[in-house]
């Protein structure tokens, strides 16, 4: 009776434990979904911001930059770039790429229209206003 260690019990514990923790994860997700409206800045989710998000995606910005710390680590964090640089600098910067400085990392020219530049800025402004528990530690990202 003592000292048994059976495969069937190990299997039952696996299934039971897994279902248990999936349910717990779903419960926490449920609570997160209920709490997010107070944190994720959704009241400012305008069409312009949504258009900016699409621009962000179809140009694969995440392939070089990070956004709230996720993405590639090749180019600066942009979740707070609106705070760091302000709207005009961002637009001027995007327009002036690539710099062509020899040996320096290069950003492609995306040929955005003025409207698209505004959308991108609106998206980056939106990102900077999400409650991220004070991340990043400072303005440099």
């Amino acid at each position, binding site marked *: 009776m003592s000292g048994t260690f059976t*495969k069937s019990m190990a299997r039952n*514990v696996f299934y039971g434990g*897994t279902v248990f923790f999936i349910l717990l994860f779903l419960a926490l997700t449920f609570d997160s979904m209920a709490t997010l409206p107070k944190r994720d800045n959704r009241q400012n989710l305008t069409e312009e911001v949504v258009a900016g*998000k699409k621009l962000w995606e*179809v140009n*694969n910005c995440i*392939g070089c930059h990070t956004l709230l710390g996720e*993405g590639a680590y090749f180019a600066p964090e942009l979740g707070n770039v609106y705070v760091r640089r302000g709207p005009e600098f961002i637009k001027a910067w995007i327009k002036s790429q690539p710099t062509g400085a020899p*040996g320096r990392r290069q950003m492609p020219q995306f040929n955005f229209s003025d409207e698209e530049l505004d959308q991108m800025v609106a998206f980056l402004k939106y990102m900077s206003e999400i409650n*991220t528990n004070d991340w990043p530690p400072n303005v440099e990202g």
Partner: protein
Amino acid sequence: MQYQSQAVAKPYFIAAIGLFVGQILFGLIMGLQYVVGDFLFPEIPFNVARMVHTNLLIVWLLFGFMGAAYYMIPEEAETELHSPKLAIAMFWIFLVAGALTIVGYLTVPYATLAELTGNDLLETMGREFLEQPLITKVGIVVVALAFLFNISMTVLKGRKTSIALVLLLGLWGLAVFFLFSFYNPSNPVLDKYFWWWVVHLWVEGVWELILGALLAFVLIKVTGVDREVIEKWLYVIITLTLITGIIGTGHHYFWIGTPEYWQWWGSIFSALEPIPFFAMTVFAFNMVNRRRREHPNKAATLWALGTGVMAFLGAGVWGFLHTLAPVNYYTHGSQITAAHGHMAFYGAYVMVVLCIISYAMPVLRGRAANSNKAQVMEMWSFWLMTIAMVFITLFLTAAGILQVWLQRFSDTPMSFMATQDQISLFYWMREWTGVVFLIGLVVYIASFFVKGETRAAA
């Protein structure tokens, strides 16, 4: 080879290795771009190289997993594969679709690719690791379903071992969680929240079931230890994996707009995530020590032990280093993350796929094991690649620590680009170590062409 239909695994393994080479070449391009910023610009911008690097990784591991399943399932179920023809058809569809996607990345600007491939119908592109065009994503689902149908039918008609069931569960989970890649809400926080349901619940969830099943299979074969013993430990290990890993998703919910309590839940559960990896290492060494036969394939045993150790170091130790919220506050999205990602992926998934290839390929080529000469060469490649990866990780960790210090922790923080200039020495060292890794990979491939005395497969 006990069953004729196991042979379909062979093209999968060959394709996996071929794509692996591509992944490493693009890794070297990116590594060079880190220090010579305008290298290959504008022909291959960094974001394109990275997309190719990470997508090739995912695709070749999937090829490896599928090949492994096609090899293992007939032997586990003790019956021929449901449909070898379907398996071969899916191989070509997946390979051609994958190749076309990569060609698309390399030849057309990403925005144009998005437009050409119907991204406007359902916007799914442009998110890290999920950059594939919509049609490729749909293709992946179709191939995965056909594949799952094929192996599930095989298991249903044959013997249902625990290893086969765990493998099936992992593969089905892989397909189910991939469906979240089609969900891209316009709210960025929601987008990120469920994006992790693909990425985290893959690599720290269902993929680990696949990893466990592959490792258990090889251990049974090379050690001759009772299936009963190995299978019950497999269950214990994957239980530990999932009870820590599922809520461990929370370590990605610290700074992306999600509620504060995730800092506690995520830290506590992910702090325990090294335990299953440690258990796996102990398990692998234990089984090899208790072996009841000397299998002629020494290389496969080496890969199996290596998987345990390197997965523990990469996923366990390097993950733990920066998983606690107060630490992660400073390290999040730095080169420390890159260091962890490299060693974890290599240690857990690259090595386990190379392990099953190492065991299965000789059998598929009609011998119990490769010649001694070929095995020695393969073991050289093991050490070259593994040690190179250890140093890549160490250099990236050093780069990350310096980066965090200068850019995040300092009272007078440096800008991102100024910091990058400060740490370029580590990037150079990483790049040279990457070359060593490539040499290891070349040696690995060369070992397939070494002849010598071999024993016929049993």
